[in-house]
């Protein structure tokens, strides 16, 4: 069972609003002081799914791929420390500021070079742009089926059964392998790497592939070739107009709140 897991490094989504800032001219998020970027929160779940499937099969290789700056090596190392086998970092100055169309194309190209595995796993979306487009794009480009927002996966003989999260419940679907599956938080807690595994992973080699080694057409990558142009990026303004309900006891506050709500015709 050979599996590719795609992971991404993102600014910590738990960054407090007070420390989240944007460089509007550069249309980029300013890294918050003292808050390190993290592995996209859904990606360890995708890695966890890969580990369980490989271990159930008793054989196979898990290759972790990340497209990003040099620091994205940490996202790969995290997956290696969890138990993945190999890592490839896709890094090139021209990859900065590309859109998800190009990201999917570069990932698909990489996966072809590695050799199409039995299964490609990703997180359901990246916590920076919040789009969820790349898993579907990679599947379209490789012309293989895609199942998104998985809660549970089970591999059979040449096929995969996925329980996925719907707007109002769950659905069980089946498709043939190879396929792309994106994993959601409902999958459950991923394992946390132990110190020893983190140290072993630190020593593992992560290959770095750039535009040339991937053989990409230089005219097809780069922020100038975006299909979706980013015109502006900003932090929306919020003003606080809160009225804190007063009272000497919780009961009195509750009474004053009820009266306020009645006065405002909200109840």
């Amino acid at each position, binding site marked *: 069972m050979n599996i590719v897991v795609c992971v991404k490094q993102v600014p910590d989504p738990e960054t407090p609003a007070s420390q989240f800032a944007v460089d509007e001219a550069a249309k980029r998020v300013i890294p918050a002081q003292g808050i390190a970027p993290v592995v996209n929160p859904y990606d360890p779940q995708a890695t966890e799914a890969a580990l369980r499937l490989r271990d159930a099969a008793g054989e196979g290789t898990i290759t972790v791929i990340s497209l990003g700056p040099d620091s994205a090596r940490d996202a790969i190392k995290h997956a290696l420390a969890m138990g993945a086998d190999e890592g490839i970092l896709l890094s090139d100055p021209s990859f900065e500021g590309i859109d998800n169309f190009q990201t999917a194309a570069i990932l698909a190209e990489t996966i072809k070079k590695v050799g199409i595995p039995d299964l490609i796993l990703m997180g359901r979306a990246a916590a920076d742009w919040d789009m969820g487009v790349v898993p579907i794009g990679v599947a379209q480009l490789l012309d293989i089926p895609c199942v998104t927002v998985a809660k549970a996966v089970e591999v059979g003989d040449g096929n995969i059964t996925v329980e996925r999260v719907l707007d109002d419940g769950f659905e069980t679907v089946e498709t043939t392998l190879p396929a792309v599956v994106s994993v959601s938080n409902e999958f459950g807690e991923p394992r946390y790497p132990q110190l020893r595994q983190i140290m072993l992973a630190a020593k593992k080699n992560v290959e770095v592939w750039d535009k040339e080694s991937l053989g990409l057409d230089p005219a097809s990558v780069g922020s100038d070739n975006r299909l979706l142009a980013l*015109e502006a990026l900003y932090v929306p303004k919020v003003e606080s107009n809160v009225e804190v309900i007063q009272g000497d006891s919780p009961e009195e506050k509750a009474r004053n709140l009820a009266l306020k709500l009645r006065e405002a015709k909200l109840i």
Partner: protein
Amino acid sequence: MSAILVIGELNEGVVASHTFELLAAARSLSDAGGGDVHALVPGDSSVGQSLFGGGADAVHVATNQLLQTELTVDAFLPPVLNVIENTGADIVLIAQTAFGRDFGPALAFNLKAAVAMECTGLTLDGGRLQATRACYGGSARAEVKWGSSVQIVTIKPKTLDALATDDSRSGEVTEVSEVGEARVKILGTEKAEATGIRLEDAEVVVSGGRGLGEPEAFGILEELGNLLNGATGASRAACDLGWYPPSQQVGLTGKTVTPNLYIAVAISGASQHMAGMSGSKNIVAINRDEDSNMVQSSRFAVIEDYKKVIPALIEEIKNLG
């Protein structure tokens, strides 16, 4: 000649309410010079008729039976590509449902076009679409424009109002018979048990978070919700802990709600939660932490242990009658 195409969905055999919300968005783009509003929905002519009243100028129905019972991306792509080709549609509006969030990107890659997910605030600038969308978990907003000729957009249900039905509108329904081969087979679905009012339809929503400390606390929130004729929601932290079903999760990866009154109990107000409820007309926060974002974003706040406030609040509301 540009045109707008709305991709409709069915809900238990009738056109889904979010399709009418998309039609309203399409109508205003049309009024701004975006071209005629076409709508495509799986079903027969009679199903399609209702789309005129919602704002469509022309209606297309994808008649293959499979699309009406088991709508999948691969099966729906050929009829949609056909209608885009025949109408010259350069703006395609899709609902951000479990289906649409897969279909939008798949369509985009088929057309070598860009897709922007969960857009708000669509405008036309020199005939080309410009959209605003939240990103970074709701902490930032991006303005985007399309470099591709076809511009694909998804819109989250309940973020727009449908137009009042105009029965005087009518037109011709075109049938499209194509269907693609479904590569993903649906083996079964499990509906979340719906008790009481649907979260998205409720005028009052009482939601609980991790600060409740225990799953049993949702009982008292449900009591308050029922008393106010409302629904009960939860933060993702509470859902991830298994305290409440994911179908009741409010936020970026859950439901979007816009009730008249949203009571947030022991929820800190992370941007990803706010993304699903900041459109509420009135927010009330019950929280121990005055500095929390939920308190700062609310109209009224009670700074207290919820355990002491909620039972008293229920009594007071009963007393007010």
